[in-house]
């Protein structure tokens, strides 16, 4: 029996890791600049701009208020447009990325807010440009906090990727539903749950370690 389960599990785990890693990378590439933009256009910040801040903020809030399972279905046309199909592991990553960008944006915004304004002021007094303040003050100073926040996003992605799996994306969620639930194979259900728990613990452990190592406070 194990001979049959092990390949199923490793394949599903591989798909989950692939979905999470790729979506996380793309979402971070957009999410961090979004978070920076939300922060620096905020009240009393270096590039204060109420209109821009409110506009972006509203869009972010709108996307974040849609439950993932609905978002996934709602954007099927968009997914089909981007990857040419609405089913499969790659297709599942489109809603994952779209849901994660605003999430990361808000998390990064919060992290940047923790940087004391005195540091920004000191940099301004030394003649720093806004771009230099972002790259040399805001991001380095909040890096431990950003890493901790991104860890939370990865964990949320593991959960969402399981949901995405249910619409044919593959991965551990798909496996648990198709075998564990529909074919009534409780041992596969249990194995999937255990792997998910270990995966989440592992991500959290690595995130904590990295955040601690970066933290010089």
């Amino acid at each position, binding site marked *: 029996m194990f001979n049959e389960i092990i390949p199923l599990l490793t394949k599903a785990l591989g798909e989950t890791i692939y979905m999470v890693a790729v979506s996380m990378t793309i979402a971070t590439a957009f999410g961090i600049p979004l978070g920076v933009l939300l922060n620096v256009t905020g009240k009393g910040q270096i590039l204060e701009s109420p209109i821009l801040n409110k506009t972006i903020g509203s869009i972010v809030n709108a996307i974040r208020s849609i439950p993932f399972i609905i978002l996934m279905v709602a954007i099927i046309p968009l997914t089909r447009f981007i990857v040419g199909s609405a089913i499969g592991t790659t297709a599942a990553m489109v809603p994952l990325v779209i849901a994660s960008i605003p999430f990361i944006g808000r998390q990064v915004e919060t992290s940047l807010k923790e940087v004391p304004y005195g540091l920004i002021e000191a940099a301004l007094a*030394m003649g720093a440009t806004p771009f230099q303040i972002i790259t040399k003050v805001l991001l380095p100073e909040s*890096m*431990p906090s950003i890493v901790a926040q991104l860890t939370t996003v990865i964990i949320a992605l593991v959960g969402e990727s399981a949901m995405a799996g249910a619409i044919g994306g593959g991965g551990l969620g798909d496996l648990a539903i198709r075998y564990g639930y529909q074919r009534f194979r409780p041992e596969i259900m249990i194995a999937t749950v255990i792997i998910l728990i270990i995966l989440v613990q592992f991500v959290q452990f690595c995130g904590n370690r990295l955040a601690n190592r970066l933290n010089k406070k």
Partner: protein
Amino acid sequence: MIKLFHVEKTYKSPSGTVTALKGIDLTIGRGEIFGIIGLSGAGKSTLIRCINMLEKPTSGKVIVDGKDLTMMNDSELREMRKQIGMIFQHFNLLSSATVYDNVAFPLRLAKISEDKIKLKVDELLNLVSLSEKANQYPSQLSGGQKQRVGIARALASDPKVLLCDEATSALDPQTTKSILDLIKDINEKLSLTVVVITHEMQVIKDICDKVAVISNGVIAEQGSVVDVFINPQHAITKEFISVLLSNELPVAFRGNKISQEETVGSLLLLRLTFLGESADNPVIAEMIREVSGVDVTLLFGNLDQIHGIPFGRMIIGISGAEEEVEKALNFLKHEDLKLEVIGYVQRNYSAFDKGTW
């Protein structure tokens, strides 16, 4: 070096407007250490931030090294700020960067080559005696060491002006002393113009050449530190100085009614302020010799220095026949000192008996 012309600053907020500066005129000479003292909320931080335009004045002019900062655009202002170093009460160091990287920060902003940066940072760390701490993080340093890093960082771009906003207010008295000595030292070595903001007269007394007293957004008085100490005009100034000199009456008299008329058993209290040579003169002994009919009680005495000039303060009580007291007062008026007649005060014997005097 620095000139402010009628600088006003009004903050607008939903809860109303606050006018933090109500027309400030100041002239700060090249190489001077200029102190600005005031109570919390007086407008000190706003004022010093107007000098490098971290706060843009609502009206007025800010001239530094002959250039009007209020007319500059953002990029001109950034260049100008490289000539104006600043240090802060809470140091404002990057917690994620080592001491070396903190000091290198302004140089990297200016895109200077790493070789040149290394030379400059090593020299600065040496100047502030922190060479061995180069690879430590700010969290591993004491408050005084952090401020030394702040000073090294502020000096990295070879500024002409150093602005210090309550730079010693978070430090204990001994550390304060060493930081003030360092500021004085670099002022002399680099002929740097220094502006010091503080709420402590001690700081003014220790390093400043000139002082301005700010109260409610206006300059209440200004002048050389020696003049202001000897002859304070404004109540706020007197208050600041008195904190320093414990100008209060001795315990045995405190709280008792001060009268301009002599009452039985009361002493006429006099406050004498000596400056320079006179502080070393045995004025009281001479007075007793000249005017033999008065009894003199020394109640309080304190000898201090401002810029190496002796500065003393004394409270004495005299009693005796009216014409003898008159003679004593005339004698003191002729001496090179400042005489203030406090009045007739009854001694509080219970305090004396309890030994709290």
